[in-house]
């Protein structure tokens, strides 16, 4: 008698157990998407990439053939490589996508052996391009590029790390324009790096890009001396460009937010995602948000994203030796 009861309980428990765990996902018919899409962000919550991803993920589902949820998964670590690796090795069925930092993880691939290959990703598009400007604190004695170039002591530039986007821009700019410089690194996050400059601990900062520095520039805490670009910046119309200063090679520098799927994702699925992304970037509500939050949009489709990658790779390949030398300093 006791045995029967025991087996009954056992069977009952296992039935419940297996129904939930091993039950097949309810297939909503064929086609994509079938279930929640995971969007990998390679940085902790709250940063620029995270914000853009969340904003897009909010509006994108309605442009997909089936309105599934897009859930952000923050996978920070190893300077962005951890999440990039995760995306690279994820199943290429379109249910995992990610937002990538170019040239960030591109440079990583150039200087060390990475387990991912940027050229292999299935690019869906790009949503933004971050341009940089070099800013100095309020009462800085430096009023122009020439002042920096003629500095008696090395110009101290703050950055989160020499391999970060801001750090990269700083090194490239300083080396090219022959500004005597020294990097003060290790700040935890772009805001800390910017505050270091505002505080006067350092002389100049490029971290954060125009996008994040804008709020301090408007308040007068930071003064931009020049922007890295070939035409005037939308929000900094009075600031001179590096091209005008005579260094057009630095003009194409910037950080791009590329959106991609794992290598091997079927072309038709990539196209669905691509279309949805572009429609989202054009969505009225999304645009309204971007205007309010002063976050720019630079929509690109998959092919344009690939072109960006190629161009950036070519650009930095030229300066490989320069970078290697600078990083060693």
């Amino acid at each position, binding site marked *: 008698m006791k045995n029967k009861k025991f087996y009954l309980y056992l069977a009952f428990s296992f039935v419940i157990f297996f129904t939930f765990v091993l039950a097949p996902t309810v297939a909503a018919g064929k086609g994509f998407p079938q279930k929640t899409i995971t969007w990998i962000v390679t940085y902790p919550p709250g940063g620029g990439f995270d914000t853009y991803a969340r904003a897009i993920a909010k509006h994108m589902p309605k442009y997909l053939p089936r309105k599934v949820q897009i859930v952000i998964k923050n996978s920070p670590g190893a300077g962005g*490589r951890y999440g990039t690796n995760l995306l690279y090795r994820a199943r290429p069925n379109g249910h995992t996508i990610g937002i990538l930092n170019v040239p960030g993880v591109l440079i990583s691939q150039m200087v060390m052996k990475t387990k991912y290959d940027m050229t292999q990703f299935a690019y869906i598009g790009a949503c933004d391009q971050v341009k940089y400007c070099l800013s100095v604190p309020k009462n800085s004695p430096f009023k122009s590029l020439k002042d920096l170039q003629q500095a008696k002591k090395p110009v101290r530039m703050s950055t989160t790390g020499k391999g970060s986007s801001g750090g990269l821009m700083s090194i490239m700019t300083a080396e090219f324009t022959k500004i005597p410089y020294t990097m003060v690194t290790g700040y*935890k996050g772009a805001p800390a790096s910017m505050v270091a400059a505002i505080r006067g601990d350092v002389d100049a900062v490029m971290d954060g890009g125009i996008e994040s520095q804008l709020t301090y520039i408007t308040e007068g805490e930071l003064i931009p001396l020049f922007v890295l670009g070939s035409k005037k910046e939308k929000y900094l119309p009075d600031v001179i460009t590096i091209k005008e200063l005579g260094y057009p090679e630095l003009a194409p520098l910037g950080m791009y937010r590329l959106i991609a799927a794992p290598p091997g994702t079927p072309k038709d699925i990539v196209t669905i995602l691509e279309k949805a992304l572009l429609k989202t970037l054009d969505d009225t509500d999304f645009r309204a948000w971007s205007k309010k*939050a002063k976050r720019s949009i630079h929509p690109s489709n998959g092919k344009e994203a690939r072109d960006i990658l190629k161009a950036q790779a070519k650009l930095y390949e030229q300066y490989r030796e320069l970078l290697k030398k600078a990083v060693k300093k």
Partner: protein
Amino acid sequence: MIEAFLQALTYLLRGDTIILIFLGNIIGLIFGALPGLGGVIALAIILPFTFGMDPMVAFFFLSAIMGSVAFGGSISAILLNTPGTAPNAATCLDGYPMACKGEARKALGISATACGLGAIFGLIVLVLLIPVVRRIVMLFGPPEFFMLVLFGLITVAFAAKGNLLNGLFAGGVGILLSMIGYSPVFGILRFNLGSEYLWDGIEMIPFLIGIFALSELINYSVKGGKIAGEEQAAGGKTIDGVKEVFRHKACFLQSSIIGVVIGIIPGVGGTVANFIAYIAAMHTADNPETFGQGNPAGIVASESSNDAKDGGALLPTVGFGIPGSAEMAVLLGGFILHGLEVGPMLIREHLDIVFALLLGLLISNILASSFGLLMSKHLAKLTHINVYYIVPMVAVLCFVGAYVLRENIWDVVLALVAGVFGYFMMKFGFPNICLVIGFILGVLAEKAFHQSLMMSYGSYAVFFNRTITLIILGLIILVLILPFITGFRKGRNSESDS
């Protein structure tokens, strides 16, 4: 200012706000109590749900979540020696021994009260300092930071109480462990044995889960019995716990101040505040040797600083756009996603949202404390469950908690290894607290040190020609001399006693 405050208050009359505050409170408690989770993950998960809401309501909700995490974490710290979040680690040190003595209810009472009052203190300070927020953010640079962290490291010697050599040894090992990984200051990888997993160093949460929870779990399962001894009474009285906080007014005040100050400084983090407050309390107490064995002041110190820091962390966040902590970074992201511009103008243009945050934090803290006080009896019952149920349950929770943070199974291995390591440290007389302090502060100190030198073109004068660094340096010297003075006094007192 007043209009903004009233504006925020009117939202409290709305049904959806009230419901969301309650919901946020519960979410915060759960995420806080579950080891390995915590405020950052809670906020990150909930953030998308707030998109459709009125920004004011959304921020009431988000701050309500933040407000109860600390107390939630203290529940597992006290009952299971498992810090629910990293800053609750110091609460384990005296909370769990109290639970073992059968005083779990009292411990929860202390924690609830200290949490609530600490949060209120932090928020008051926040409001008072808003007008001078810029000045404050400007005050703390790498040299100040270095001095502060150095101060924290010095406390290792005192945390060792009665076990100096082993303590210093453990602390040193902790510092070395913290330096594993990529250093942004030098741009090189250190001590990581070529492993990609260790690229960012030893991950703190799984490490702490291992050192505190798993090691105690091993210890406990070897000993057997119940957490609270067999014949212990049903956990003491909650009201006694409340009274204890008032009995340790000075300790509370001191710890809350430490919490707020460290909360204000971006980059230091709550875990640091916790330990410094704890050690400071131990140091200024009459009977330091009872710390770590169930001294109520230990919980007061740990939890009041833990909650006060939230108020402090809000200051640079809303006042200048610099996140005071990781949770604040998510909050800032939330601001942007709701279309609010962040930076120094946030306070000017959206003061009502700031008040929404303040009120949300305040109410949620009070709710959490009330919950703690009311439910302490039932929560304390956990300590009376048989070991054979507790051990597997906690083990599972710890493993899942360690895993879920980065969805990385190796973190579970880390927790397990740390657990075994922590057990042997305990068993052979090496204080884990020293190891942990060294681990948390070690690489921070080194980074700040080198940053300061980079700033000053290599001149060491940078540590001596700034006001705040000199003040902290003075404190360090004072703290080092103090034991000799009190020892002197004690020697004389005991002579006159006997």
